[in-house]
């Protein structure tokens, strides 16, 4: 599947692979395209602190009013902006899958009726903190929830970062795989 065609109006979940140095550029591009398609975007980040990410989106002319953040890294790393607010939910660590699942359900409820696009950044960082079987179970939960609610999403991962078994397991949960 081609990157340019990957963000559509259809409800679909895509797994994106990119080189580590292209990760944030891919993230920004997907956000931009999704907002342009009229989606409300929920960014789940365990890679960059959400408030810094937000400022970088602004500098890249992305309309952040349409973006909501679930951040599982800022508190964990002892960052300065650790309080949840109207557009950020802070989870205590990337290993806190219960907190992450609850936040995810809360946000979907909060924006019920909106056309939602979830961006999960990133699967590779999640694998630093959690064993692969737990990651697969969590991804299954996320994708099932999105499909039940007819929503769309993207999962970012580093190219070559999944072993063959995990690649096939996660691959079976999504509608397409894109190499950027």
């Amino acid at each position: 599947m081609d990157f340019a065609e990957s963000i559509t109006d259809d409800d679909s979940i895509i797994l994106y692979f990119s080189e580590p140095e292209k990760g944030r550029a891919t993230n920004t591009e997907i956000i931009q395209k999704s907002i342009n398609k009229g989606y409300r975007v929920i960014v789940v980040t365990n890679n960059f602190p959400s408030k810094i990410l937000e400022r970088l989106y602004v500098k890249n002319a992305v309309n952040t009013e349409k973006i909501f953040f679930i951040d599982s890294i800022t508190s964990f790393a002892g960052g300065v902006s650790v309080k949840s607010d109207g557009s950020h939910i802070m989870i205590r660590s990337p290993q806190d899958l219960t907190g992450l699942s609850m936040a995810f359900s809360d946000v979907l409820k909060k924006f019920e009726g909106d056309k939602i696009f979830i961006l999960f950044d990133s699967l590779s960082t999640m694998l630093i903190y959690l064993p692969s079987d737990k990651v697969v179970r969590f991804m299954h939960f996320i994708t099932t929830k999105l499909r039940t609610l007819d929503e769309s999403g993207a999962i970012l991962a580093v190219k070559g970062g999944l072993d063959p078994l995990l690649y096939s397991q996660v691959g079976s949960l999504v509608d397409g795989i894109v190499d950027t």
Partner: protein
Amino acid sequence: MNKTTEFRTSEDALKLWAEEEEKEPELMWEKIYDAIGDPIFILDSTGLILSMNEASEELLEVKFQDIKGSRCYEIVHKTETFVEGCPFRKSMETQNRESYKLQIGTRWYRVSVDPIKNSEGGVIGAVHIITDIDELIKIHAKRAQLGAVIENTGEAVIGTGPDGLIESWNKGAEETFGYSHEEITGEPLLNLVKGDYKRENEEIRSDLKKNNRTSEREWKMIRKDGTEAEIELSFSPIYDERGVFYGVSYIGHNIGPQRLAERELLGYMTESFIRMKKPVEIISSNLKEISELYEKEEISADDADEMIKIQIKNAEQILENLYDLNKKMVHKKIGIPDEYRSFFLEERAG
């Protein structure tokens, strides 16, 4: 060869004997006596030496004429009476064959005394024979030593007969397969061999029978409890005393633990690679990006500090993951050398 030729040959041979007997009839018995390689003495019932053959003269380095009238103990043992445990005296008492082993110098001999009886059945003397059994004794000793080595080796050593049935089974085989010698003797070796390897076994037996060499093989075999054993086997032909192919001996080394360790180490290497390579690439790339963003003034010093702290957390977690993996490896008890075991469990710095 036909029967007529056989008969003629026998007749010729007997003719030679008859001619010789006719020439010197009184010496014929003496010729036979001297032809025997083992020293023989004829004694009366008191131990007086009545005659001795040439082999006796050679052994004692004397001529019969010079010792005529002497008693056996005076000549053989250089004593004034019979030695303790003397088989001649025993034989005179029991009126049966008596024998014992004796070391003279560095060589071993078997001394046998057979009583000579008169027409009424009374003992009137004895035939005293000394047989050199030194070579036999040494061969037996070597075989016994080799047997002990084979019996006690940790390798499974299995001997099969011409029909492929198990005839010998050492302690190593007992430990490897779980069957005792009594349980397995007489059973086909094929009962221990898994599936495809059965055909290979027949090929090997056939090759060895034809004197062809066979290389070592790795077979999957079955233990008494039904579990699978990975065995590296070498094969040798067994020949009988005539040098005719008799059966096959198998020496098996249990390579299961080694293979398990190899597979586990491969798994460890793969898992280490997954847990380390890409995450380190992510950290490296993130650090570069942080540096670029800071240089372009897209993020503040505080932002850069916060983002660097995240990368430190990532690096710490990668180390934690590797320590966990090391611990799992050590606790699996898969034959890792002790020095590596302690290396894996090394105390963490800081």
